[in-house]
């Protein structure tokens, strides 16, 4: 029992990371109907950014966090401007290859910058682990859970209460109609890219103290994040959050039951089951196919 609780707790931690990545996928998909295969690389860039700013240059943590997220957002901005906006034939296959190309490019770039070594960071704060009914909750886990929840709540508020957020949703529902009402749809797409890159970066910075950071850490995280987004229902904010936690816990329990090598398969088996049986995600009432 104790053991299972421990698995659940550590599953929630990694689940929060998946959730933040999933939110990035969902936001972008909502505004552009595009799936960015380079999303995981934004996570990697976030982690490596923090490693550099906080770990190497010893910039104060809060400033380093902000700088990293801002920096990755700028990369998201450039990515949209240079690689997505310029596409003449926005066929899914073409966009898939472009974003895959971008992911290889980012990975190659960070290998040039940081080399092939793995780095690690200390937790944000040195507080002792919290005891939850006998299971240990590390201080970094608390940070991860809090930051991810605050982030999703903030996004929810942004979508529901601010004009820009509502405009983004309008674009997601019907781009043409939104354009006609005077919403600058192109700028909304750009904003979605920037925000989803920022989401990736946040996931990267909060995970950096609990994992080894290297140039190739992003791909798997990105794919897992996508699995989480599908699990909760691609395009749904709360769905992504629940999907992330669920995937994290299931994976963590899976490690308890099987070997750690099999762990990676769990996400993909879930992905296939969801695609086959409930393409709208586990939460949506009816199976909606967006394509």
């Amino acid at each position: 029992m104790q053991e299972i609780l421990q698995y659940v707790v550590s599953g929630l931690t990694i689940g929060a990371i998946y959730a933040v990545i999933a939110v990035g996928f969902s936001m972008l998909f909502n505004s552009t109907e595009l799936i960015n295969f380079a999303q995981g690389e934004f996570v990697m860039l976030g982690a490596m950014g923090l490693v550099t700013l906080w770990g190497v240059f010893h910039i104060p943590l809060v400033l380093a966090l902000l700088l990293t997220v801002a920096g990755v957002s700028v990369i998201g901005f450039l990515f949209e401007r240079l690689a997505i906006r310029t596409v003449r034939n926005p066929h899914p296959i073409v966009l898939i290859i472009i974003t895959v190309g971008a992911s290889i490019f980012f990975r190659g770039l960070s290998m040039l910058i940081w080399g092939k070594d793995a780095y690690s960071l200390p937790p944000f704060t040195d507080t002792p682990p919290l005891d939850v009914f006998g299971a240990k909750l590390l201080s970094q886990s608390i940070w991860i859970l809090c930051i991810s929840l605050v982030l999703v709540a903030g996004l929810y508020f942004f979508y529901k209460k601010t004009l820009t957020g509502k405009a983004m949703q309008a674009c997601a529902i019907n781009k043409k109609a939104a354009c006609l009402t005077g919403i600058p749809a192109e700028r909304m797409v750009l904003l979605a890219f920037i925000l989803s890159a920022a989401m990736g970066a946040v996931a990267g910075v909060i995970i950096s103290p609990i994992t080894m950071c290297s140039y190739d850490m992003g791909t798997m995280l990105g794919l897992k994040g996508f699995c989480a987004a599908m699990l909760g229902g691609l395009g749904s904010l709360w769905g992504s959050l629940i999907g992330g936690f669920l995937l994290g816990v299931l994976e963590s329990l899976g490690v308890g039951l099987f070997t750690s090598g099999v762990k990676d398969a769990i996400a993909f088996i879930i992905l296939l089951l969801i695609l086959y049986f409930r393409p709208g995600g586990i939460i949506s009432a009816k199976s909606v196919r967006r394509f």
Partner: protein
Amino acid sequence: MAIAPHRIIYLIFPSIIILAGLFVQNSYYLQVLTFIGINTLLALGLNLLMGYAGQISLGHAAFYGIGAYTTAVLTVHYGLSPWAALPCALAVSALVALIVGFPTLKLTGYYLGMGTLGFGMIVHIVFREWSDLTGGASGFIGIPPLDLGPISFSSGRNYFYLVWAIVMMCLVVSNRLINSRVGRALRSIHDSEIAAGAMGINTMSLKIRVFVLSAVFSALAGFLYAHFVMFISPGSFDFLVSIRIVTMVVIGGMASIWGALFGATLLTLLPEWLHAFSEFEMVVYGLILMVVMILLPQGLTRGVLDIYEKSKTRNR
């Protein structure tokens, strides 16, 4: 008139192969040429599915791997001759494609991409984790070379000829297929699935059949790969390999059989050339993918032709 150039190419192409085999002495070059042939098989298979039927697969390395591992397991663990293992490898791949294809090919667009990706990932993990059978992450050693009676294919040159003979066979098969009733039906699915249905085409069944065929092509490539390098590991069949196969098809130009050959050639040579860039290899590779897709989404072959035709009309 339209047929004549094709006929000529069927003469020229084998001649080039034979001459290449005679004059290329350097064993490294022969090896690269053999890999081009194996990759052409992969590209041809995926091209049938993606270029003609319009169904993307981001997990084709799985079938490539299934072909390679099946023959490895049967020849090493069960002592079968490679030629007996070949039909088994193709059949296993076809069977897996059939089972996976049913639910997967109901998906479209990105969902299909992700579904096939997930499948590829799972198969890759199976290769890595089922170590009793596959040797696990460290790989599978001791796969026997091929020989046929007195002819041994262990020499680079013989293997080169064998692979390219098979490639030519598959080129002819692909070409005949797409210029037939079935081929037209396939292409019609690509353009409008609903209209294809209204023409009496059972689109689902056709998609599954071409998925299976394309898996068989990939398994054939896997078989040839396994007996060529005689050592396989899960890394040769991972997600990036799937992406590389897709890229071969797209760069070469979808729905073009010679484009598949061209794409496979380019994508096999590119990493060899990029070795010169050493550290910059990945950056350059990623950039090339992006730039080609942004500027020439029809693929290099078609794109260059388009530019040529445009310049011709402008000059007039």
